[in-house]
Each structure stands twice: as C-alpha cells, then as structure tokens.
C-alpha cells in the first residue's frame, strides 16, 4: 500500500485528535469522523489564512476547509502605494498556491448560508460543509445605502478602494493618472471604528506625493467623518507640513474634520456633507461599514448597534453563538482593525483551539501584539506598536505600562522596515517560501 505524507499525518495523528476532541461537548460523536475535528474557515485574508496555516501546524489532526471567493490574495496594507504610483496591483497580489497545499480542502466559492444549529455552511456552488468549529474571517461589509446616491451605477465611477482589487484600487489609480494637473481629489474617512485607522491619512499622503511629483498644482481634500485625525495624528500632521505645505496657503492637503459624506453624485462629480457640496475631478468615498456579511448569516453581529461582533478574548468565540469564532476586522475588540492584528489574532485563535483539541483549556492569560506602519510616499514611514496582555481585573487584553506608542518621527529606516514587514506578513499569512520572488517595493 502506498501512503503519502499527508495521509500518514491524517491517520496517525487523527486517532489522537479524536480522543482529545471527545472533551468537546456534543461535537465528537456526531461530527468528527476518524480524522479529527472539522474546522471550516470563511475568508482567506490576513485573519483566516493565518489561522488556517497555524491550526494545521499546531493541531495537524484538524480537518480544515477554507472557503474563499477570490482567485488570489490582494493586500490592503501597501495598497496606498499603488495610488502613489510606487507599486502596481500585481506587486500587492500574491498566490494562494502554498496555502492550498496546507489546508485539507480549499474551496473557491462564496458562502450563502450558515446554520448555527445544524452547524453547517452552504456555498453559492451548492455545497454544504459540516463544522465542529466555524471561523469567520470575512473582513468588512460596506454599507453603500448609508450614502445617498451611492448606487451600482455611481459605483462604476466613484471607488472606495477600501477592499483592494483591480476594480477598486486599480481603477482609482487610473483615474488619478487621467486627472489633469490642477485637479482636485476628494476622499473621505469613515466614522470609527473602521478598517485600518491610519489608512485614510496615509492615503492623503500617498496621493499628495504622486501629485507633488507629477501634478504639483493639484489638491487633496480630506472629508473626515470623525472630529479629528483618528490615528497617528502628530506624525501625519508633521508629514503633511514637511512634504505638502500643510498649514500654509499653498497646502496640497485640505483636511476637514466633522465632514461626513451624506450623498454622492457621479454626474455632477460632487460629495455633499451636512455643510456643503464639494466638487472633485476624482472622488473616493469610503462608506460606513460593519462586520462581514457572513457574520450576519451566523447571527453574531451583536455589538455596537448590531454592526460588529463581540468575542471572548481567550478563544475569539462569539459571545452569542457557540462554536463560531470571529477574526480580524469583523470583531469588536480593544485592538485596531489592522492586518497585523488579523494575522496575530489568527494565530491566537489557532493556539486556543489547538489547546482545546488536545483536551486542555485555552491559555488563560495570552499576550498578542500589533505593529502598524504608515508610509508618507516620500521615502519615509512611521509606526504604532502595542503589546496587549490579559488583564484579570478588566477581563480583557490591554497594553502594560509603556508597551504602546508611536515613532518619535518619520524616517527612511522605518520605510525599509515597512517593506520588510509587508514581505514577512504576506509570507506568514500565506505560507510563502523563503525564496519567494516579491516585486513590491517601499
């Protein structure tokens, strides 16, 4: 008989896995076959892909099905460099080929229904998957109907580019390239909490850097729904002043807080706030957002007026539905909605579930970190870095003393680190080999 390595792992470790899983209430007898607990992961972004890779490392007996509609991974972190003209879409696009070899079943499909009583997930392709543990890592759902006029026709012209893709980030870059010198780029910042808190302010830098190089008479108008710059405020203000004349009559950036876009008009090319109408040659409105649609299907959007998902910090299990775990931007936590957090909390959830599968409780006092770089488009970058540790009084993960902070100032070395971060987090998330040929640059 021939037995490949994968079958060997499945059969030999699977038996141990089954014994360990017997401790999981109700699951083992009805759902787990002879080959370990069934784990269904929805979404192969930073959270879902990382979780899948690490649960196979730390609990190889788990039978992992990963459901993802996109043919390849496109990185939101670093996508603002495409708007600056530093990288192209292909540079921030990476293959799922390595991940496909790691998980037991990679399903290129879209989830259409979740039954949390029967513990099944159904896809558009008509397949149904039973689970012992469901991991929802679907990112965000954009709420276009919260902005008047942001219909399907308008969306052909006005892009959000808050989920990176050729049709969003790629088209927005083409629009910026086609804009004449002296034109106006109008962009918006959604109300907190939103995906990637520093992202909009970095976008203002990146587009202004492109204008400075190629179209110096052009302007960036930032319409911020928040009362102030929501992340790395001092560093962004310093960068805007240093590179783009912010605070002078010739500023390339016009920042307007408390300016929530209420309506968009693609024919008149204008954005309306409560105060006035703002005309632009290129318009980029990020609508309000909430936890991914799959979280709605599972009934786990219980927090923040039904928009986000509350979780148990030790396991990332939903507070309202058992055996459903929520990763990344969909979760309502103390952590910023960053790629680094999605990646690291993917590992944290894999750690907790691997302990449970081995018949042990999840670590009662875990530690997890975030490091998030923002680029200026001018060869420099800066960071925010935080360690979160379990705090028994608060029943939450919070930064210990002096374990949270930002750069003293922007620097070239941090731009090199930002580029290195991107390559390492892509490798860590997607299982890319050490010699993978990246093309992205800082």
């Amino acid at each position, binding site marked *: 008989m021939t037995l490949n390595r994968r079958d060997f792992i499945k059969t030999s470790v699977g038996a141990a896995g089954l014994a360990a899983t017997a401790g999981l209430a109700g699951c083992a007898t009805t759902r787990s076959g002879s080959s370990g607990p069934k784990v269904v992961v929805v979404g192969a972004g930073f959270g879902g892909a990382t979780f899948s890779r*690490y649960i196979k490392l*730390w609990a190889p007996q788990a039978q992992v099905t990963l459901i993802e509609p996109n043919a390849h991974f496109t990185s939101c972190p670093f996508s603002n460099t495409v708007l600056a003209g530093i990288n192209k879409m292909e540079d921030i696009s990476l293959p799922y080929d390595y991940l496909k070899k790691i998980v037991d079943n990679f399903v290129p499909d879209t989830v259409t229904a979740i039954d949390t009583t029967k513990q099944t997930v159904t896809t558009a392709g008509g397949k149904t998957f039973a689970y012992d543990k469901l991991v929802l890592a679907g990112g965000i759902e954009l709420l276009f109907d919260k902005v008047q006029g942001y219909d399907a026709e308008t969306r052909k012209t006005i892009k959000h580019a808050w989920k990176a893709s050729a049709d969003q980030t790629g088209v927005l870059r083409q629009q910026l390239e086609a804009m004449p010198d002296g034109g106006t780029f109008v962009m918006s910042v959604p109300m907190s909490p939103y995906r990637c808190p520093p992202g909009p302010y970095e976008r203002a830098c990146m587009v202004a850097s492109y204008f400075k190089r190629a179209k110096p008479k052009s302007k960036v108008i930032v319409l911020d729904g928040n009362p102030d710059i929501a992340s790395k405020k001092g560093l962004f203000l310093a960068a805007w002043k240093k590179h783009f004349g912010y605070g002078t009559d010739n500023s390339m950036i016009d920042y307007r807080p408390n300016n929530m876009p209420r309506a968009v008009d693609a024919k008149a090319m204008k954005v309306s706030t409560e105060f006035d109408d703002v005309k632009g040659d290129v318009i980029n409105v990020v609508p309000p957002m909430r936890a991914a649609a799959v979280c709605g299907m599972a009934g786990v959007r219980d927090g923040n007026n039904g928009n986000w998902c509350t979780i148990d910090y030790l396991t990332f299990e939903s507070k309202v539905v058992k055996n459903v775990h929520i990763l990344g931007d969909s979760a309502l936590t103390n952590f910023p909605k960053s790629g*680094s957090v999605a*990646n*690291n909390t993917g*590992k*944290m959830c894999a*750690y907790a579930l*691997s*302990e449970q599968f081995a018949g042990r409780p999840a*670590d009662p006092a*875990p*530690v*997890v*970190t975030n*490091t998030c770089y923002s680029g200026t488009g001018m060869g420099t970058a800066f*960071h925010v*870095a*935080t*360690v*979160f*540790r379990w705090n028994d009084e608060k029943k939450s993960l919070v*930064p*210990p*003393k*002096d*374990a*949270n*902070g930002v*750069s003293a100032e922007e*620097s070239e*070395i*941090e731009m*090199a*680190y930002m*580029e*290195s*971060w991107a*390559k*390492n*987090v892509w*490798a*860590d998330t997607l*299982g890319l080999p*050490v010699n*993978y040929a*990246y093309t992205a640059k800082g």
Partner: protein
Amino acid sequence: MKKSLITGLIVAGTLGVALSAHADPRTRFMAANCSYCHGPDGKSRGAIPSLTGLEPGYFVQQMKAFRDGSRPSTVMKKHANGYSDAEFEAMAKYFASIK
C-alpha cells in the same frame, strides 16, 4: 549491530521531530507573535533582522537593552516592555532551536 544502530537512529530522529512539534505551546505562540515582522519561524525576507538561530544569551541581552533604552530602537522598546525576563528566555531558547 547494524540493525540496532539503524533502529537507534530512527528512534532519535522521531524523538527530534516529536520535541520540536511539542515545544511548549505558549512559547511557540509567543514566538509566532514576532513572525509578522521577523518572518515565519523568525526567518526574515527583508531589512528586519532574522531571529532564527540567534545565540540565546544574545537574544535576552538585546531584549533587555531595548527595554532599558541602552540599545536605541524604533518599535522594539514598546515590544520589550510587554514581556517578562522569563518570557525573553523562553523565546530565546525557541528561536535558537530552529534550524
């Protein structure tokens, strides 16, 4: 004789695999926390230094130097402030054990 040697090697080999696969799960997870910047298994793909194979004493000394500020850093002071000395030592041993 020959057979027992081969058996011995197989046992040693299996034991080695078992040891790395069953490293203390908490340490393994804490070390994995570093990999989004320092690369999977501490093998960096860019300007950020690799951690794999560093001498454990050096690793611990550098983490303490980041914490007290005697080694200047960008992000590392904040990270160093978040861990105990015992955790530095556990992570140091883990990264040193990776080939």
